[in-house]
């Protein structure tokens, strides 16, 4: 393999691609991790929301020729609502149980839900939209050329979204009352209850915002590469890997883990072949589990 023969612009493009993908991965890992830290719910259908967001955007913008801004607004609004309904259906029934029961219970129920999303989406798309279920969006934006390296317009949009969403989540957690309460719940659940924090109010906010951000990430993911109805569980697995690498509930950890996995995926795909992408990041995952089980930026639980 021509490892040393690669030109500098190509290498820069590759690294930028990994960074873009990684920023998006970091964001979806963080929304998964925030829900886990505050409610003990492990949402296996997380990647499914990503795929659904991409699918709905494709349907509205590509097939129904809707104005992109309107299409994005509809997707965001829909998934804010989906997040609230999901919380009511899957989180509320488990409230008041022990963290361990909530964790196990949520894995079982949301795994079923993830399979239902796959089946519904595959069937619906093939039957009503197109016999080849594949979701992708294209934007006609001029590429940006810096020092001979080309950056596509959609990549720049993805990167700016990932940065903006990360900053917004950070401000939400540190500056808003709901965000402070969410952090309190994740650090000491009983301590938070004692102070009069209503865990349902927090979990509604977390799932509404998290699901919306995840669907938005799905929209952007299909700008970079097409998704199919059965990609959901693979994406959940990627988010879980990042969560373990970065540490549960850590925003910088999720971002760092996301970028590591994104770079690993892009570089292995280029130098060895796309089929090998998971191998490198799973190797990173094993290394982290062996050497620093609390995650790179996580804290040892007591």
């Amino acid at each position, binding site marked *: 393999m021509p490892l040393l023969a690669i030109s500098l612009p190509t290498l820069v493009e590759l690294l930028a691609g990994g960074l873009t993908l990684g920023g998006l991965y970091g964001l979806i890992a963080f929304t998964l991790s925030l829900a886990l830290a505050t409610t003990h719910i492990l949402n296996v259908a997380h990647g499914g929301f990503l795929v659904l967001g991409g699918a709905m955007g494709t349907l509205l913008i590509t097939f129904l020729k809707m104005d992109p801004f309107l299409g994005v607004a509809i997707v965001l609004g829909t998934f804010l609502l989906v997040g609230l309904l999901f919380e009511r259906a899957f989180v509320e029934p488990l409230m008041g149980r022990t963290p361990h029961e909530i964790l196990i219970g949520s894995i079982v129920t949301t795994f079923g839900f993830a399979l239902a999303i796959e089946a519904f989406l595959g069937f619906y798309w093939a039957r009503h939209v197109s016999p080849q279920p594949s979701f992708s969006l294209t934007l006609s934006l001029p590429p940006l050329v810096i020092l001979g390296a080309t950056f596509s317009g959609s990549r720049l949009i993805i990167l700016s979204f990932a940065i903006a969403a990360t900053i917004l989540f950070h401000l939400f957690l540190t500056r808003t*009352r709901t965000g*402070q*309460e969410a*952090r*309190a719940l994740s*650090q*000491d659940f*009983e*301590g*938070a*209850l*004692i*102070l*009069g*924090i*209503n865990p349902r109010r927090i979990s509604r906010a977390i799932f509404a915002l998290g699901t919306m951000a995840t669907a938005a990430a799905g929209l952007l993911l299909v700008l970079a590469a097409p998704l199919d109805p059965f990609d959901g569980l693979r994406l959940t697995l990627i988010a879980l890997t990042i969560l373990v690498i970065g540490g549960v509930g850590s925003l910088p950890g999720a971002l760092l883990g996301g970028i590591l996995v994104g770079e690993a995926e892009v570089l292995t795909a280029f130098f060895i072949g796309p089929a090998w992408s998971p191998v490198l990041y799973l190797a990173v995952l094993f290394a982290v589990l062996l050497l620093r089980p609390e995650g790179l930026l996580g*804290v040892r639980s007591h």
Partner: protein
Amino acid sequence: MLEVSGLSVAYGDLRALWDLSFRVGEGELVAIIGPNGAGKTTTVKAILGLLRAEAGRVSFRGRQIERLPPHARVREGLALVPEGRHLFPFMTVSENLALGALTAHDHRAASLQEVYDLFPVLGERRRQLAGTLSGGEQQMVAIGRALMSRPRLLMLDEPSLGLAPIAIDALYQRIADLNTQGLTILLVEQYVFGALSLAHRAYVLEVGRIVREGPGRALLADDDIRRAYLAI
């Protein structure tokens, strides 16, 4: 102020409290003492709604609260300093305290100043992470955090646990001061000598039942209590 009647709590098949009844009057300092496993922590958790009671009524300031969720009971004016403190270790002292004022947000700045006046060392360490404080300082944060909600009744669960004797003395002085200033207090303790010295009245809890009650000083002078709890 607080009236508990017929309270029964079970963990699965294991019964922790049997038909417990007691009351705390306005301005009183009442202690519940008893050995490890007697059900003291279970009692305060059930009063705050952290545990579901099988039976019994809890009336607080004339209102039945046994069906309310914990956050609604806090809004009624109950506050708990839990066993083990349950601070938010990765937040600063001032962030921990601020979260105590969720139900009394308008008074936050004034309450914060009062807590810093009560425990000056917390003012010096306001920007330090709570997890890095000493045990005695953490207990101060836990008490300060509970006071931030301007409670009508302050419940303290084993506040002396894990503290050095000198820190216990200072802490008990603060608890006595708070009561003198008019705060009603329910003190749950294994440290029988301190609790009985301080309390107007006390209940003795053994294996989930109240076996004795009386004025603190009288129980402290009682031969059975001295033999069982003070090894005298």
